[in-house]
């Protein structure tokens, strides 16, 4: 892609990688086609619903794409099977026209049988049908108890790894019994054995126990995940051998069959892990992440900073009078930062917008601020300023503060977005068009002149959503604001005219989260439809659709180098996606509840994530998805995280009205020491918690470090 030398934005748009990633295993919530009055329904609603049909969607906005990108003769076998699946989907939905267009475009004219064995509809039924057994319902309980006894008696070395199969086997046994109509036995089994499971499985077991008839088994997201046979447990070779010996002893009965058919046991060489290590990675709906999912290399380094020498030099000359001595170290620092990071992606891996003059001024301002910032550490704790929303108890859903800390935006459950200036500068609107023509375009302060002085206000109300505003993001250059709402739309607002510029309808279901890339131009969104989408500000169709999560995509975070997007989901996993290929490059398991917040460290190497299980996990991107540290201390859901600008402190806040400051420098130090072998246990140390600031009944919804390292926090006062 990058070989054209001068990449354009549109070269990002080729479609094929998007289609393929992970689709085979994803069951998107199927929207009933007959529906017409649904949420934000528009003409192409069914199209957007499936990643498959997006092959044509994402083809559309790429007029500059070379035709060679979509060549009919270039199809491999896999493409063909994908094609068949797509067309089957379209047929089922009676989307005749779309199908015809697709066939014409791709030159694919082979007849496709709707009742083909791979049809998705048949698939589900088939998966369910596999539960049909003639097994004696009475032997299930005994068999499971035997398994329990076996695990209990195993050597300590194997015990904890082997116990990983307990939960999935129990779940599948229960479902098998239900499917075959032995309801009372099933409930007896669950009643007898649910208690011995790990606490983080209890919630799932409760959900599973809701299902009491065969009819209810269809359409349950959790069950579909289980049924797709994707539950993964990792085991060392020795543990597996140990388990196999047990299974060989009782070759008949449900346990060996279930383990054989329904579990995916990911084998690795090395020592079996202890209980602590096993527990650390369990918890997601699909068990643990297989090693293969986390193998690919990640360019986690930062991009090279563009030339700013000239601008900075100018300033230094101004400063020279005051402190001529400081000149040298400054330059050194600059030189150092320009040294190429071996882990950084090539700067043209993803086409980024060119720097405008305005951006350069901004960059130099950042640089200047960074020289004046307070160095924070475990001995110098931050000052924190708290913005509380009064008269908005239980009402504020989302907060964002822009990077230079001049604007505060918050969205309420009453579908309003309010932007407030938190500096003395007022919010001005642009002059009307007829006055704009009078302005001299070449003058230096054209941007200032564009704005109407009389319209200055400290607070602006943006109305447009028809549902709670779940997420907000101000663009890095402070000219745009993104908001995502329960109504399934993303709105792009201009902060110069204070109007809605674009309504992006792509997600059919509520959109939970939206975020700008650190370089602007791109943004990602994720929602209830289990996909994350990558957009750009100048196109109304998504550039990429990241599908793979088994439940809602709750939160998103761009990597500082804009090449990757991390998503956190209700399936309790964190995934990292590559923006240029659309592939999932990391799958991180370990949370025991839906992930509610993600944040990359400023250096780009570490990812911190928080969840409803009140834990804060730190992941190392350089290693293959290992947990570096588990920070526990909160008593309720975490909603926000912030790294200090130099990455030495991590602050977290949530519903429990407490702001905690963690010693991140220590986390990274110790992480480097033991050179992250795959089986090392995550760091868990009380001394990492430096301090706690509590508020008066004000949950903390947003944290932000200013460029000079003052911590800003915000939340609604619920008194």
């Amino acid at each position: 892609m990058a070989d054209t030398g001068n990449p354009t934005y549109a070269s990002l748009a080729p479609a094929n990688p998007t289609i393929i990633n992970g689709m085979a295993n994803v069951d998107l919530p199927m929207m009933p086609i007959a529906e017409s009055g649904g949420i934000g329904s528009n003409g192409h609603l069914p199209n957007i619903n499936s990643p498959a049909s997006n092959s044509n969607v994402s083809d559309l906005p790429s007029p500059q794409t070379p035709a060679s990108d979509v060549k009919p003769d270039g199809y491999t076998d896999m493409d063909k099977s994908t094609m068949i699946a797509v067309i089957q989907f379209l047929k089922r939905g009676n989307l005749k026209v779309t199908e015809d267009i697709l066939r014409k475009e791709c030159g694919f004219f082979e007849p496709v049988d709707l009742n083909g064995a791979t049809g998705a509809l048949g698939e589900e039924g088939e998966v369910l049908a596999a539960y049909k057994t003639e097994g004696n319902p009475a032997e299930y309980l005994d068999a499971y108890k035997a398994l329990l006894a076996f695990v209990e008696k195993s050597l300590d070395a194997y015990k904890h790894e082997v116990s990983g199969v307990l939960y999935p086997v129990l779940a599948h046994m229960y479902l098998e019994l239900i499917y075959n109509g032995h309801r009372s036995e099933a409930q007896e089994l669950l009643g007898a054995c649910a208690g011995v499971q790990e606490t983080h499985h209890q919630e799932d077991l409760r959900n599973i126990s809701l299902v009491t008839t065969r009819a209810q088994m269809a359409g349950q997201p959790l069950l579909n995940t289980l049924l797709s046979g994707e539950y993964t447990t990792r085991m060392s070779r020795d543990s597996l051998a140990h388990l196999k010996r047990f299974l060989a002893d009782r070759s008949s009965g449900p346990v060996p069959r279930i383990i054989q058919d329904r579990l995916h046991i990911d084998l690795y060489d090395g020592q079996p892990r202890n209980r602590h290590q096993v527990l650390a990675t369990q918890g997601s709906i699909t068990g643990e992440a297989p090693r293969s999912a986390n193998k690919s290399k990640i360019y986690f380094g930062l991009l090279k900073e563009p030339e700013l020498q000239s601008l900075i030099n100018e300033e230094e000359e101004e400063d020279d009078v005051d402190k001529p001595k400081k000149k040298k170290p400054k330059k050194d620092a600059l030189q150092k930062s320009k040294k190429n990071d071996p882990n950084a992606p090539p700067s043209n891996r993803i086409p980024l917008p060119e720097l405008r003059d305005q951006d350069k001024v901004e960059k130099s301002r950042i640089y200047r601020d960074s020289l004046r910032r307070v160095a924070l550490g475990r001995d110098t704790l931050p000052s924190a300023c708290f913005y509380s929303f009064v008269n908005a108890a239980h009402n504020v859903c989302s907060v964002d503060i822009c990077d230079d800390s001049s604007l505060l935006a918050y969205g309420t459950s009453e579908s309003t977005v309010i932007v407030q200036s938190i500096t003395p500068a007022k919010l001005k609107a642009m002059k009307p068009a007829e006055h704009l023509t009078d302005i001299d375009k070449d003058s230096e302060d054209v941007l200032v002149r564009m704005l109407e002085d009389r319209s200055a206000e400290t607070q602006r109300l943006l109305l447009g959503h028809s549902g709670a505003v779940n997420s907000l993001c101000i663009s890095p250059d402070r000219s745009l604001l993104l908001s995502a709402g329960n109504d399934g739309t993303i709105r792009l607002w201009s902060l110069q005219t204070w109007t809605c510029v674009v309504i992006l309808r792509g997600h059919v279901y509520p959109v939970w989260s939206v975020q700008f890339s650190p370089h602007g131009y791109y943004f990602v969104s994720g929602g209830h439809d289990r996909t994350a989408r990558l957009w750009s500000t100048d196109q109304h169709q998504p550039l990429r659709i990241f599908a793979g999560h088994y439940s809602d995509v709750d939160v998103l975070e761009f990597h500082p180098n804009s090449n990757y997007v991390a998503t956190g989901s209700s399936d309790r996993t964190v995934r990292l996606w590559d923006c240029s290929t659309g592939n999932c490059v990391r799958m991180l398991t370990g949370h025991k509840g839906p992930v509610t917040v993600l944040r990359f460290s400023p250096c780009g190497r570490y990812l911190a994530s928080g969840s409803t299980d009140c834990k804060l996990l730190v992941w190392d991107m350089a290693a293959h998805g290992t947990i570096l540290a588990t920070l526990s201390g909160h008593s309720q859901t975490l909603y926000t995280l912030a790294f200090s600008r130099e990455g030495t402190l991590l602050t977290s806040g949530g519903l429990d009205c407490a702001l905690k400051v963690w010693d991140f420098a220590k986390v990274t130090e110790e992480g480097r020491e033991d050179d992250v072998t795959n089986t090392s246990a995550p760091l868990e140390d009380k001394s990492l918690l430096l301090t706690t600031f509590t508020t008066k009944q004000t949950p903390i919804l947003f944290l932000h470090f200013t460029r000079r390292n003052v911590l800003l926090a915000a939340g609604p006062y619920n008194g």
Partner: protein
Amino acid sequence: DVARELADDVTFRLKCLVQDGLKFTQHGKRNKFTTSDFDNSLKAKNIEPVYGVVSSEHIPWRLTSGGGRELHFLEDKELEVADLVSQQLPKLPAAPCVKSHWLSIEGVQPAIPQNPAPVSKHLQKQDAVNPASKLAAAHSGDRNNRNIHGRGLKSVETVRVKQLATHELSAEQQLYYKEITEACVGSDEPKRGEALHSLSYDPGLHQMVARLCTFIAEGVRVNVVQRNLALLIYLMRMTKALLDNTTLYLEKYLHELTPSVLTCIVSRQLCLKPDMDNHWALRDFAARLMSQVCRHYNTTTNGLQTRITRVFCKCLNVDKTPLATVYGAVAGLCELGPEVTKALVVPKIRVLSGKLEQCMEGPSAYERNAAIHIRAMLLKSVPPVLKTNRNPPDLLSDYKSEFGYLGQQLQTNVIKLRQCPGSSSSSVVVSGPPTTMRTLGSPTSSPTPTRIMQQGVTGGLAGRAVVLAGKEAVPGVQQQQAGGQKLIIMSSRAPTTVAQGVESVAGLVKPATLPGLEASGLISTTHGVVTPSSVTSPSVLPPGSKFVLVKTEPKDDDYGM
């Protein structure tokens, strides 16, 4: 059978919906699952949610039969359009706004009202109740240290000496202490108001409480000897402010505070000219403080209330106690609630009334004055108790034989109370100033009214309080109620003129509080001043304004201001 199947299925669907709804709760960043979350999850499933079934009342299940079937229906009341149109619009909720404060400054949380108290009340309580807990914590800390250091090294034996001076005040705190104490007993009334406000609202005073309590105790001791009534009043107001501070737990300092307050109640002489100065108000005020202390800090272990009542009883028992002390004891006991009154005051009435009779007819004007006060106090607080404890036929002879001299007046008061149905509640308001004080002192009220409140509560000392014009208009009402009453209007919005205040009181008073007090005369007189429209709609009341009945003594002093 079908019903069971259906019920099963409905349960399943509902659970699924609730599960989905929880996601909305989570993204709404709330703890509570709301109906809108449920609506949202219905919408996400493409089911039209049912709107308009918001009802706070019970929905009756009604059936009607017609055409051979039974139908369930909901009763819809007919609403008059005219009513809807003419109805006052409900008040708009206040617009949300952003307020900022420092949560921490270089890692230290400043002690400002926006931040929670540095040492929570719970901890202070624990500290006071169980001093050993700190020691235990220190010990466990020691043990941990030893474990870390241990092994081979000679563990350093640390002997914990209990520090004698545990309270080190910083320079700022010393300055604050100086300013506060000076302001509290100084002559500058606005400054005193500020100081008292600071005492009752600032978190983080707990380090200085010890000093402040000592200051109060010393002050009372000196000023009782010097008979400086004004200073005693100021010190009691300080005590009140400390008690009102929700972040402080004062149990550790009660040994200093209680004697001081008790002194102010039952001391033989509190002022230089006992027949002129209104030391009765101070006794009343201190008695109220005492009851507040009892309510907050009485536990079975410290037996605070028992000890206090014992002191009061002793004052009542001795026949030779001066009347001022008797007054204080009666006031103190009556403030402790109807139960105490019933158990300890009522049996004593006979003895007291004998003495009162004697004093009333005696030569000394001072004694007569005191007797009048005691009688007023008894007539005010005893009848409500008698009313609940005696059965209706209130025979004059019974009363006379039981209570002697006071019997007749008690009987008339009890009968009056029985006659007016609403009076029981109003009498509670009158006889239990603590309740009104509590409603006023609620932490939500903004600083300004609190200051007024404090002045008002200082009994008859309130000079700035707005006095209802009705005093002159209906003197009868004033006379009949022992001690007299004044309506004081307080509003959290500053620009309320007296006229408005009177209007709003008239509007509210009519339906609510004064039905039994022959208030019709009062209302009718105020009607003359008031424009009819404002009387009919109580909503003209400026939001947040409160009106309180505060007992005032016939004589007003100027100390409060």
